[in-house]
């Protein structure tokens, strides 16, 4: 088996204008996460650091533990052992709701949007805002106008021009626009971390480009972004660092500058391994 050196990852593998990201403490760090399902080992001691303003891509073959890792970070699974620190504090998420309340938003592959509801209702689903005063407290009336206005702003902040009318039902939108709604929701409420699971998997070239632009927008606004993708050109386009999952463990962390796509895929599939010094 051949090995690729250029590891460990050093500051030389990060473009100069982006090095400042790594001066700060990681916003999210996982240490030695282990989870088993019966006799199957899902994660075998995986560690990960995530910094504000960076896009960390997670790649790996089917069954390598990408989704399991993400589910441990977002509260869908509770790891058997290992530590999770968010913004300097130890955390343990028992439900997705816990992670969400702590500032980690997830855009699921199946999007979790309600087709029959309009865009504004979808953006605020599960955290509706009520009107002020007696109308809100006694009659439980929703602040529809306010939510619609703020929804419009969230969508505009992401630079999405094709969506104008917040009262439009989501089922009348294209696949890319639906993805945009889901990303806008994560961006509007994710105060620290946004996790995107295969956001371009079902999209055409043009719509994929739009979604990748949104990912860059999220990163530039200071959020930490985790991007799970099978699409190597997309990963090499937007990622600052690339975490490679293999057989339940981390096969290494590379950057688009340190390794090319071919090498990344080779590590991912086990054709090559990263030498450790």
């Amino acid at each position, binding site marked *: 088996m051949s090995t690729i050196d250029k590891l460990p990852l050093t500051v030389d593998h990060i473009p100069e204008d982006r090095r400042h990201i790594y001066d700060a403490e990681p916003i999210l760090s996982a240490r030695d996460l282990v989870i088993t399902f019966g006799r199957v080992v899902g994660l075998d001691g995986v560690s990960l650091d995530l910094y504000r303003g960076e896009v960390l891509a997670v790649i790996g073959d089917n069954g390598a533990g990408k989704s399991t890792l993400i589910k441990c970070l977002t509260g869908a699974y509770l790891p058997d052992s290992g530590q999770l620190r968010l913004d300097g504090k130890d955390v343990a998420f028992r439900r997705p709701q816990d992670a969400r309340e702590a500032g980690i938003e997830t855009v699921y592959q199946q999007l979790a949007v*309600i087709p029959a*509801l309009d865009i504004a209702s979808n953006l605020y689903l599960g955290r509706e805002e009520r009107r002020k005063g007696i109308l809100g407290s006694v009659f439980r009336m929703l602040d529809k106008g306010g939510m619609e206005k703020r929804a419009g702003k969230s969508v505009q902040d992401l630079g999405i*021009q*094709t969506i104008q009318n917040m009262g439009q039902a989501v089922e009348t939108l294209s696949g890319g626009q639906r993805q945009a709604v889901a990303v806008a929701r994560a961006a509007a409420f994710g105060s620290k971390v946004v996790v995107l699971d295969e956001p371009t998997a079902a999209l055409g070239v043009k719509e994929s480009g739009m979604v990748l632009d949104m990912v860059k927008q999220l990163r530039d606004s200071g959020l930490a972004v985790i991007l799970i993708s099978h699409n190597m050109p997309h990963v090499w386009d937007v990622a600052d660092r690339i975490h490679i999952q293999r057989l339940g463990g981390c096969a290494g962390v590379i950057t688009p500058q340190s390794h090319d796509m071919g090498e990344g895929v080779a590590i991912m599939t086990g054709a090559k391994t990263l030498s450790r010094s």
Partner: protein
Amino acid sequence: MSSTTGSAAAEFARRQQSPLQRVQGLLHKRPWLSPLFLLFVAFLAFFVATPTFLTPSSMGILLQQTAVVAALAVGQTIVILTAGIDLSVGAIMVLSMMVMASLARDGGMPGLLALLIGVALATLAGLVNGLLVTRINLPPFIVTLGTLSIFTAIALLYSGGESIQAEHLPRLLNFLGEGFGIGSFRLTWGIVVVVLMYAVMAFVLSQTAWGRYVYAVGDDAESSRLSGVPSRRILLGVYTVAGLIYGLAAWILIGRAGAATPNAVPDANLASITAVVIGGTSLFGGRGRLIGTLIGALIVQTFSFGLSQLGVNQQWRYLATGVLVVVAVAIDQWIRKVKA
């Protein structure tokens, strides 16, 4: 630059819509428009056919006849909006009615207490439906098919199959059959209660988070859960509130029928489902407006009432209702395929 070409393209796309697509888009936004149109046509046809149809006294009777089914259909609507179905509507109403009446007559209870116990029992029956649907994860069709038989059997066993006439009941239980008139246009308090039920539930569905969740759970339960909607709690709530509504319908029915009869309104289940479906609410959940249900209930009763005024065989009414249900479901399927 890109935004101007984008909006120009959008403008172009809009111009390309055929009149049929525009109708589809309109019905997608307002599914109650087609039943409203149908109600209007039915009124016009009966008005032309028989001069006695559109008189104040006829209209009052039409509304009184619609009241019970319209009340039941409020509960049926919220259940169907969650992609469920409730076959136990009639059974819960009759059980609640028989308990109210017999507590008041045989138990000698004051009217108010008997009424409250009857409504509470109906609410409990709805809760049982909800628990079976949410805790044991049984399909609503099966759950309510089972409870239909169970509640009907309890009602028959409890009442011994006997009717209780209105004169043996306290005034409060008969009160919703009383009314007031403006000239020959007579309304009952039961109709007032039905209108209030529609107003309150329409407000809840369109203005509160709970209402929004009812639609969300019905449209896509899994996505709702991932979005932080407490799906099971919403479902449980829907079946329980539906039970409460059937209890109120029982009160309306005593006033309307002038008696508590264990085999009253035998077609309550189908009539309530028919009203909901004709009113434009989707049987697949997540779509529809409560106002459509009211229109749907009025349509069914208008056909029945109009045909009887014309002296036509009532079987034609069933034929017409059947055709309407099929057409309504077909329209629903069509408007679900709408594209912007």
